[in-house]
């Protein structure tokens, strides 16, 4: 008979178990999984491997399980019904068992709609309960169709999940009973924050007599941040996060520390509930937290697994490559699963003969693509390097004679390696220093083979215990055995060949490059902003129309536009709240008037005409100073930070850049902030998610949300409780549709500002006007509640990019500056008349002009 899994052994002997979870990476890098396994080893009894969680493509659960086993940790393979029919499922289960996987968690799986391939055909040939039953059948020797399994049967310790908090609540224990009946032996529950509700659930399970039949492991997740907790509260169906947890995080100085403590507290509580046989800690993308939680919860040390033996021994070959021009050191670890059933053979030589005769070009391609592959797995901060490599690749492959490639392994003084240098007379001069770290007889055997044609893919035999190159600038003495890959960049600006790449890199870091240029700034005389008032004497309508019966000209609205609060505290502003067409004061109220926001950019503007630039040039280099100037000098009541630099079609700056800028702006000013992404639906999700973390607590507006990204961004907005900009392309129905979608997501209408996508004077202003007017009429007079939302109009951006705003002063076109100001002011006034509630503009004078006019219009 089969040997039980370690997990099953522990549970059946009554031990309190700890399991955790690993989410495999979205690339083919085995090291990510192994690294996570290493973190968890010794702290958990088994580790779940998700099966493309949230329907996002990742390394398969089975492959990851094998990798985890190679680290000496017992896996719990997860299997969903989303991607395979009963044929695929059974095939994979036979395979998993053959590979030595013994724990299996059977799930229905997240719907593809939530993942990164929403177009995929969802399979769901079986559901989780049918899957459990199928696995039990396999164990008992028959396939799903009833056919007998001849030969070795697979063996699995079968698990299932249950959500104690999902509705219908009283059906959940019954459904759990079904799973037990189908063959589930252990249950891992959904994340528990509401311990009381879970207690009730367990009580009901006890009544149903389930506790004797199944081991229940309570699901625990440390909230990594306040945002995450809120996200779970509002966006994850069937996950209850009590306000008390949110409060604890809000009050905590160190959110992470508090998150860990919350997890520990919940473990202590659920441990006492009868029937809870263990905990399942899901530290999502935060595996490092698990050891700490386990220790603090008094669950450390774990029982030693009886000499765990995977069916595979993974052989490691470490290769180090240094690409001179980029100054990148890449250490790759190549692994070959070898069918070795002998003892723990880790050291085995790699045969090199077969790889000798290929052409150089392929070796080049291989190096470069290897490099690229390794690079991809690194964190976002290294993104710019990728481009550098790509460029190199192109360079080399096009005219490889042009530049010599130098490949070397940097040696460390601690070791006394056998050093060899091989020079080759061929055109692409490859100079290679291969360093043998461990002197072994094999090294000698390798030597002659290297000579004929130095092939970069020759893997210099290095033992796994090799200590890779240490970051020189940081801590030359720090030498630790490390197996993860590492990329290092040295800012070697003097070297001409590195310059190209370095330049690209500096582009990403915005601030330094700008500073130099701004110093010798020409003295521009900025004229006073104040504008004289309106001439003439105001006569109220009641007087002018005194001879007409009121009902001839009056038509009161039946609806009202919602009020949206932007910002927090004293400086918060309200927009909307109108109960009439704008400025029809004889018919209704405009509680909050028309508001203005000054627009600033995250980078130095390139195409702003002089007539506009001269007001801000001194602060172009620093968005924080810029914002400050708008507030202090020009009296801005709100700031709109337009993150144009993050646009993938422009500078494509990373989300971290946006975060940095937002952080500085938030610190510099206390007025409400609007953060406007690049408008690229995909990128905005990444960017705004980061930025919301900074501006969220300031009640800042984030956007634009479009239909393509409304799901994720609405969730972000709800998590941080911020208002949003709902952006649709000049159309009544599309605007309404987006509002409905957002509302369906759970975002209330009083958190939405509509951006109808406006056109500037001469560039579609009339069209914008008529669409906005129609929306407003529907909202006020036709009870169209989904349109009773204030308008936000991004005017400055549209006006100042027009040709006319940028043309110099000449006889035909008149003065450049007044032309631009008037264009912006006219666009602003027109759209305010159409219903605009919040106008984002650039020129201090045009804003002043609009304000003056609105003051005049407000007299009645």
């Amino acid at each position, binding site marked *: 008979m089969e040997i039980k899994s370690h997990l099953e052994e522990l549970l059946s002997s009554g031990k309190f178990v700890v399991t955790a979870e690993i989410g495999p990476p979205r690339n083919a890098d085995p090291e990510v999984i192994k690294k996570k396994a290493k973190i968890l080893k010794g702290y958990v009894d088994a580790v779940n491997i998700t099966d493309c969680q949230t329907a996002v493509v990742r390394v398969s659960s089975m492959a990851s399980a094998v990798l985890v086993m190679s680290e000496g940790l017992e896996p719990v393979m997860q299997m969903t*019904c*989303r991607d395979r029919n*009963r044929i695929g499922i059974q095939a994979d289960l036979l395979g998993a068992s053959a590979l030595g996987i013994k724990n299996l968690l059977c799930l*229905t*799986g*997240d*719907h593809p*709609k*939530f993942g990164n391939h929403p177009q995929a055909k*969802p399979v*769901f*040939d*079986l*559901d*989780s*309960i*049918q899957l459990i*039953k*199928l696995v039990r059948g396999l164990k008992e020797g028959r396939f*799903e169709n009833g056919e007998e399994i001849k030969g070795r049967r697979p063996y699995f310790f079968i698990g299932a*999940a*249950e*959500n104690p908090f*999902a*509705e*219908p609540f009283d*059906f959940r224990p*019954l*459904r759990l*009973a*079904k799973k037990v*009946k*189908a063959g589930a032996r252990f249950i891992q529950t*959904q994340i528990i924050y509401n311990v009381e509700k879970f207690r009730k659930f367990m009580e009901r399970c006890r009544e149903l007599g389930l506790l004797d039949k199944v081991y229940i492991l309570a699901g625990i997740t440390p909230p990594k941040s306040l945002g995450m907790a809120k996200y779970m509260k509002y966006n994850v*169906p*069937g996950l209850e996060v009590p306000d008390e947890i949110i409060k604890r995080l809000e009050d905590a100085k160190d959110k992470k520390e508090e998150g860990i403590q919350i997890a520990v507290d919940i473990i202590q509580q659920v441990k006492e509930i009868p029937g809870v046989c263990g905990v399942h800690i899901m530290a999502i993308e935060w595996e490092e937290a698990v050891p700490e939680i386990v220790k603090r919860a008094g669950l450390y040390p774990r029982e030693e697994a009886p000499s765990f033996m995977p069916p595979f021994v993974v052989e490691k070959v470490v290769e180090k490559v240094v690409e001179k021009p980029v100054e990148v050191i890449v250490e790759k670890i190549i692994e070959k699963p070898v069918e070795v059933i002998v003892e723990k053979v880790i050291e085995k030589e790699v045969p090199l003969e077969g790889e000798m005769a290929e052409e150089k070009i392929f070796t080049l391609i291989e190096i470069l693509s290897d490099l690229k592959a390794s690079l991809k797995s690194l964190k976002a901060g290294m993104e710019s390097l990728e481009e550098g490599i790509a460029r190199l690749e192109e360079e080399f492959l096009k005219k490889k004679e042009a530049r010599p490639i130098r490949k070397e392994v940097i040696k460390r003084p601690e070791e006394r390696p056998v050093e060899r240098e091989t020079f080759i007379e061929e055109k692409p001069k490859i100079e290679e220093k291969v360093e043998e770290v461990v002197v072994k007889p094999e090294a000698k055997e390798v030597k002659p083979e290297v000579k004929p044609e130095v092939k970069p893919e020759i893997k210099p035999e290095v033992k796994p215990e090799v200590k890779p190159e240490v970051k020189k600038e940081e801590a030359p003495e720090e030498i630790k055995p490390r197996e993860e890959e590492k990329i290092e960049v040295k800012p070697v600006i003097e070297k001409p060949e590195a310059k190209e790449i370095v330049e690209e890199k500096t582009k990403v870091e915005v601030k330094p490059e700008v500073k130099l240029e701004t110093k010798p700034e020409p003295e521009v005389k900025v004229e006073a902003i104040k504008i004289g008032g309106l001439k003439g004497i105001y006569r109220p309508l009641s007087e002018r129309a005194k001879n007409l019966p009121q009902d001839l000209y009056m038509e009161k609205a039946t609806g009202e536009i919602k009020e949206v609060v932007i910002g927090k505290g004293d400086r918060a502003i309200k927009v909307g709240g109108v109960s009439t067409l704008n400025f029809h004061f004889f018919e209704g109220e405009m509680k909050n008037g028309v508001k203005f926001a000054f627009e600033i950019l995250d980078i130095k503007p390139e195409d702003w005409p002089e007539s506009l630039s001269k007001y801000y040039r001194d602060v172009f280099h620093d968005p924080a100073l810029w914002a400050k100037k708008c507030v202090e000098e020009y009296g801005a009541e709100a700031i709109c930070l337009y993150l144009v630099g993050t646009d993938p079609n422009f500078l494509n700056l990373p989300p971290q850049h946006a975060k940095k800028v937002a952080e500085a702006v938030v610190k510099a000013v206390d007025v409400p902030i609007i953060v406007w992404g690049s408008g690229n639906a995909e990128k905005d999700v990444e960017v705004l998610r980061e930025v919301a973390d900074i501006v969220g607590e300031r009640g800042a507006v984030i956007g634009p949300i479009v239909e393509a990204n409304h799901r994720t961004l609405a969730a972000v907005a709800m998590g941080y409780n911020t208002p949003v900009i709902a952006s649709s392309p000049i159309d009544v129905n599309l605007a309404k549709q987006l509002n409905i979608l957002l509302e*369906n*997501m*759970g975002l209330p209408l009083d958190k939405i500002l509509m951006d109808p996508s406006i056109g500037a004077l001469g560039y579609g202003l009339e069209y914008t006007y008529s669409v906005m007017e129609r929306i407003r009429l529907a909202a006020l007079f036709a009870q169209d509640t989904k349109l009773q939302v204030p308008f936000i109009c991004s005017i400055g951006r549209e006006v100042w990019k027009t040709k006319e705003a940028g043309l110099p002063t000449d006889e035909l076109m008149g003065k450049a500056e007044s032309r631009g100001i008037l264009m912006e002011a006219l666009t602003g006034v027109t759209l305010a008349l159409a219903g605009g509630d919040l106008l984002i503009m650039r020129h201090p004078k045009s804003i002043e002009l609009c304000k003056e006019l609105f003051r005049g219009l407000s007299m009645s």
Partner: protein
Amino acid sequence: MIIAERRPIPEILRNIENYQKILVLGCRGCVAICSAGGDREVSIVAEAIRLARTLQGKPIEVLEDTFIRQCDPEYLEPLKDYQGKVEAVVSLACGVGVNLIADLYPEIRVYPGVDTSFYGANLSLGEWVEKCRGCGDCIIDRTAGLCPIARCAKNLLNGPCGGSQGGRCEVRKDMPCIWHEIVERLKARGELEKLLEIWEPKDWRPAGGDGLRVRVREDLRLNGGKKPWR
């Protein structure tokens, strides 16, 4: 009934780009009732095509007609009169009609004017919702008349998944979780135990997994029928 949706005019135009004379052919069956391909829609589509082609400077002659049904060879008989008179037919019937025309009149170039969507009910003016998926093996006797194959995003057969919240489906938040309703109804009827037994995996062959689906009623067939079917 079968619910269909008119295809975007540019797509229809692309198909008939090279023709000067076409027929827009409607159907008074399901597509007329769901306002996708009846008389009214025929005249709208025909007019749209004329307008668009006039604008393109390539005027086109568009004939209009609507048959009682397009899913019966008899009702398609009058199509013979158009043979040779028009270069192509844009059928606003469901996919069945288009296929049958293609089967019976191989020389006629027929193009779909609608996308055939689902089997649904007309809830209110202008709203149609899917109720059946035609899986060929009806199970709604066990689920209080509510179909989890058509109405559950995951086709579950053993109760609601963990995403059911507040009676809503997590995949379509504007839609009810059909399993929640099934549970509630059976509970009210005191028949909840129906859901406690494990529902076996579904046989998908009647749903089309076994190739083309054919139904025969021997007693009605004339002269041994028309095999093989095409």
